[in-house]
Structures are given as structure tokens and as C-alpha cells.
């Protein structure tokens, strides 16, 4: 078992597994956030519902945090091993038919930026300005107001969009290669899986993108 966790193959399983946790999370997170397009009330009620059940909340947060740490830890250790594997670089990089997919080449850089994004994202929203509002007699946090405020700052919107595009590549490659890492790739699935991975990534990222763009361009303060 320890051997498994130490091996390159085992670590890839861990990365895939933790990646899947986050893939599920970002999908639901995106879906929930779409309520912003519906109304402030619906959005705030949704946010309130999530934080109300503390056990579930902390449980989910713990799982996500653990997954994130494992994912990053494996990424760092594997990257170090990979660097050691290729101790000198080529003078010319490949091109043409034999060039690898671009998304796969920069998973580390994408990942690092996405990690920065996650931290900043938590600071801005989860631990950001606290406003209160009352919906149907219940006092709750007015998350909607925070969102509207933040998404009217042009710099933040740009940063958000850039990070989301990175996420698009990271997710598309991750969603595809998880099948490889998990060993469920078969010859006839090869092309289909790539498409499914892209569809998934595009849905998630398009959903997320629609929110700041909607706020910034259409929703007035």
C-alpha cells in the first residue's frame, strides 16, 4: 500500500481522485452560482442554506481542503521527479505532428495560478465584506451585494476571466487524463473522452464566466 502511494502511478491515481473531487465541486459550485442570474433573494437563500448545516459544511470543507493539499503535494513531488528525469533541455522544441497538446504542457503553471486564485477567491468572498439582509424574515449574509460590488471592479473581472480560461485548460486536460490515470482508457474511447472532457470544462467555465460578465455588463449597482 505504501509502495503504491510512493510510486508514480499511485500518485497519479491520487491526483486523479482528488481532481475528481474538485471537478465535482466546481460543477456544483458553478450551477449554484447561476442563481445570480435569477435574483438576489434566490442567491442569498442558496448561500445561507449551504452555511446553515455546520456539520455538512465543515465536512465538505475538510474533504475539499484535504483533496487540494493532496493534489498539490502530489503535483509538487511528481514535478520534482519529472525535472530530475529530464536533467537537460533540448535546444529546439518540437513542432508539427509530433508536438504534444499545449494544455498538457503547462499543467503546473496553470495549477499554481489556480491555487493563487482559490486563495484570493476565498479572501474576497468567503472572508470578505460582511453585509446583512433579511429574506422572508430570516437574517442572513447579503452575499449578492458582495458579488455585485466585486464584479464591478474591472481589474478583478479581468483577473477572474484570465483564471477561468486557465481553469478551462486545466480542467479539460485533467478531465481527460483522469481516465488515463485511472486506467479506463480504451482504444475506442480515446477520441470520445477528449470531447467529453472538453464539453465538461466548457460548461463549467462558461457558467462561471457568465456570472461576472453578466454583473459587469448588464447588472447595475
Amino acid at each position, binding site marked *: *500500500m505504501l*509502495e*503504491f502511494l510512493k*510510486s*508514480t*502511478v*499511485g*500518485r*497519479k*491515481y491520487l491526483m486523479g481522485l482528488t481532481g475528481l473531487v474538485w471537478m465535482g465541486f466546481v460543477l456544483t459550485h458553478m450551477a449554484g452560482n447561476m442563481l445570480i442570474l435569477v435574483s438576489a433573494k434566490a442567491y442569498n437563500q442558496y448561500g445561507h442554506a449551504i452555511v446553515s448545516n455546520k456539520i455538512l459544511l465543515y465536512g465538505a470543507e475538510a474533504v475539499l481542503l484535504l483533496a487540494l493539499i493532496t493534489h498539490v503535494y502530489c503535483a509538487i513531488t*511528481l514535478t520534482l*521527479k*519529472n*525535472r*530530475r*528525469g*529530464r*536533467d*537537460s*533541455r*533540448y*535546444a*529546439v*522544441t*518540437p*513542432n*508539427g*505532428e*509530433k*508536438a*504534444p*497538446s499545449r494544455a*498538457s*504542457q503547462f*499543467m503546473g503553471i496553470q495549477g499554481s495560478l489556480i491555487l493563487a486564485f482559490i486563495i484570493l477567491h476565498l479572501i474576497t468572498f468567503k472572508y470578505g465584506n460582511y453585509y446583512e439582509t433579511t429574506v422572508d424574515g430570516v437574517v442572513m449574509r447579503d452575499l449578492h451585494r458582495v458579488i455585485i460590488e466585486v464584479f464591478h471592479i474591472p481589474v478583478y473581472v479581468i483577473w477572474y476571466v484570465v483564471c477561468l480560461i486557465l481553469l478551462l485548460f486545466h480542467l479539460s*486536460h485533467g478531465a*481527460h*487524463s483522469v*481516465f*488515463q*490515470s*485511472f*486506467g*479506463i*482508457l*480504451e*482504444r475506442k474511447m*480515446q477520441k470520445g473522452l477528449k470531447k467529453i472532457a472538453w464539453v465538461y470544462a466548457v460548461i463549467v467555465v462558461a457558467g462561471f464566466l457568465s456570472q461576472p460578465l453578466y454583473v459587469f455588463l448588464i447588472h447595475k449597482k
Partner: protein
Amino acid sequence: MEAKKTLNLTLKVWRQKNAQTEGAFETYEAKDVSPDASFLEMLDSVNEILIKKGELPIVFDHDCREGICGSCGFMINGNAHGPQKSTTVCQLHMRQFEDGQELVLEPWRASAFPVIKDLMCDRSAFDRIIKAGGYISVNTGGARDANSIPISKVNADEAFLSATCIACGACVASCKNASAALFTGAKISHLALLPQGQVEKDERALNMVSQMDAEGFGACTTTGACSAACPKEISLTNIAKMNREYLRASFAQKEEVAGGDLA
């Protein structure tokens, strides 16, 4: 038939005395190259001139020159075995290039493949991976009749495709992580697809992956560069199969009980 137009090329070739010394690029001209010549024949001509000038010829590994022994291989402008798909460098012909082109030739670069000299490197790590379990333990003699083990054509063909690996090392060379997953995966898949390979499949997967890691190859990040560079077009599914075999083996492997009889 009319004479074909010959090519003039500039070669920037990596020259390195041995593993201990630093290497550097040297520039050579290849003149009047026939488009029908193979890439290695072009290098042969360059070497003939170098020898006559009293310089040291460029060293590269090669043998069968039919694309099957796996000896040859180096990078041409960043591509393992050059620009043409599913081709070893010995089967790459000069008609693939244009007059006046500059070509940069580098050896495979991977810590597990130390350079021996110029474009020649040491790929014995592959032998050690095979030694760790890339076989079926069957002694000579006493094998049962070949037709008593029916194998579905689909599996036999799939196993064959995995078994076509020539161990040239292009997968490792083209991978940004210098991963040997495609090489190792191909052998694990080949044997795991056949009924003869079932008995030892767990130990095989565990031992071969462990040796692969110990040799200092990197991990697979599914870039697909290996398969794109592979002269035998070994599929990425072989890596998936290896991962699956390895997972199953890690959890399903039974503990060996101490042997010994009562005698």
C-alpha cells in the same frame, strides 16, 4: 529517368566526448544530398568527409536501418526521429526536407539515458525494466500444444500492437518528464492481454513499475508526446492499462506464504 534535384543542408550537431564532459553544438554542411538517401546515409557522407579531413566522425547508434531493431534515434529540430510520423530516423528519407534547411541534431536527453558520445546514449534502463518482469516464466520444453490455448483474434491483435515496441526510447526522449510509461505500459499490456500472462500479472505490474521509477524516469502527465513520436504508433491506452494493472495488483496481491515441504 532524369536526375533528381539534390539538397544542401546545414547541420548543427551535438558533439559530446563522453558522459563526463560537457557537450556543444558544431555546425557542418551536408552538400549534394540525394533526396532518395536516408537520413543516416546523409550522415554517413558527412562522416566520410570528416574522416578525410582528419576530424572525428559523428557517433550515432544504428544497425538494421529497416526501422525494426530500435538502435537509432535522435532529435531532429526537436522531434524524436524527425518530422515524419511513425518513422525511425533510419527510415526517414531526405525528400522530407527542403534545400537550404538548417537541422539541429541532439541526442535523447533523459537522466535515465546518459549520453555515451555525441548522439549515442545508454538505454540499458529499458533492459532492466524488462528484466524486472517483462516475461512469462516458462522454461524450455514441456510447453503444451500451441493451439490448446485459444486466444481471441481481437486480443491477439491488440497484444501484438503492444508487442511491436522496438525500445528505441523516442517516448522517453519526447516526453517533457522523460517518462517511460509508454514503454513499460506496452510490455505490461502485451502480456496482460494474453491468457499465458495471467498467472504472473500482479507481480509483473508491481515489479516493472517499481523498476521504472527506480531508474529515474518521470511520471506520465498524459501529454501524448510519446505516442505521437512512437515509430510504431503504440497507443496511450497501454499506459492506462498499466495503471489499471498496477492498481489491481497493489490491492489484490496476495501475500506469499513461506514454502517448504515436509520432506
